């Protein structure tokens, strides 16, 4: 593995009975990558994320993070090593506020999670990091509202803030702007664009405006297998990709 490769998978496959959801996929993410994973519905994009993060066990193949084989680690162990994801459908603590959620995540990250009888609010490091994240993700004005009452776009931002609070080396974003109303979209797009430069990002998204403005490199997945990989220009010009995925550009936007 080259020094710059942060995350890689080799010959990754996953079968569900007779269905091959992931078919011998090999992929490399470089340090600071802005990499998009696109493909038709049912191509296996989310399954690949689930394999990389340990939510599914591969039938075959190997996954390395920073040169270490993590194929057999549990999801939380992968998070501890810096492999963090967001979900297509928000997975949030609805009864907590954004501040409480982030304080809990940051505390865990700082190793304070197991300290019983400890007032987390007293720790300056927790407070500072929370404030920074709330600002960065445009959540300051709603930090004390129960998460369940937040507008959908804010919930998406919180999902991403939690991921960032885990101090990722690699961030896997599964359709971060899906379902976000036009009014809240811009905020989210800017936030995605402003993610820390040293964090490698793998983005799944059907919003081609976002994908093509964000990605420096793209992989196209079809029927669980890699159809092609290249620069956004190469992908946009590839007739096979237009045929199976992009169409002719009348509708997406």
């Amino acid at each position: 593995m080259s020094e710059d490769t942060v995350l890689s998978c080799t010959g990754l496959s996953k079968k569900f009975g007779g269905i091959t959801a992931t078919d011998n996929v090999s992929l490399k993410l470089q340090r600071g990558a802005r990499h998009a994973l696109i493909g038709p519905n049912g191509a296996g994009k989310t399954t690949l994320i689930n394999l990389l993060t340990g939510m599914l066990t591969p039938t075959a193949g190997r996954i390395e993070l920073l040169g270490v084989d993590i194929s057999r680690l549990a999801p939380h162990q992968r998070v501890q090593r810096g492999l963090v994801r967001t979900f297509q459908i928000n997975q949030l603590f609805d009864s907590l506020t954004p501040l409480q959620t982030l304080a809990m995540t940051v505390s865990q990250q700082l190793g304070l999670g197991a300290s019983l009888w400890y007032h987390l609010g007293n720790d300056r490091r927790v407070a500072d990091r929370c404030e920074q994240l709330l600002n960065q993700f445009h959540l300051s004005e709603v930090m004390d509202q129960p998460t369940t009452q937040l507008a959908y776009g804010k919930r998406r931002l919180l999902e991403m803030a939690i991921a960032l609070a885990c101090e990722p080396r690699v961030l896997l974003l599964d359709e971060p702007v899906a379902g976000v109303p036009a009014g809240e979209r811009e905020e989210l797009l800017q936030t995605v664009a402003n993610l820390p430069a040293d964090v490698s990002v793998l983005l799944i998204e059907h919003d081609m405006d976002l994908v093509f403005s964000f990605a420096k490199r793209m992989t196209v997945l079809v029927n669980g297998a890699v159809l092609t990989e290249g620069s956004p220009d190469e992908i946009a010009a590839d007739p096979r990709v237009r045929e199976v995925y992009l169409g002719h550009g009348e509708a997406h936007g």
Partner: protein
Amino acid sequence: MGDMLQLENVTAGYGEAVVLNQVSFSLAAGETLALLGRNGTGKTTLINTLAGTTRQHAGSITLNGVALHALASHARAAAGVGWVPQERNIFKSLTVLENLTAVARPGAWTPTRVFELFPRLAERQTNMGNQLSGGEQQMLAVGRALVLNPQVLLLDEPLEGLAPIIVEELLRAIRRVTRDEGMSAIIVEQHPQAILAISHQAVVLDQGRVIHQGDAAELLHQAELLDQLLGVKSHA
């Protein structure tokens, strides 16, 4: 052509809470209406009210003269309302084909035709609902509403999570069923351009009230007004 669907001063919400306030508009057979508005302005509540899953406090909803507001949700489906909810709500323990045949009613749309529209579903027809990807579930939710052969189709964010090429297909299909087959449609979408381009009317909600009502094509070309109504730069 007379109006097929009519809403008059509809006030509705959840329990005692009022979300929609005196909403009125009408839709002719074969017409498509783009229902727009910022988040939390009542779009989904309006769709749910037409489908009969909210509490209607006042006003009337009629479909071809039938008082829908007096009917339970399942009776509205029988009266010609097809609903694609935002959460998709497909039957996870049924196969793709069973999801379609369980609800199909006589008419132009059959499971076979749905499979022509979404070839991916044809490949998945023996898979259970819980074995589908997010986008495949979305296709199935739309297909299931179509095989009801409704008079009015309620689509709550039908394009969400779909690949661009499928979005094109679906928009073409909606245009075809409304223009050629006389089905009406009310569509809630986060991409106003895509939907306005295939709609006749546009209704914009804010705080549960109608703040704009007019021709969809006109609104499509008034970028500033659209930005103002939706509170954003919505043009690509």
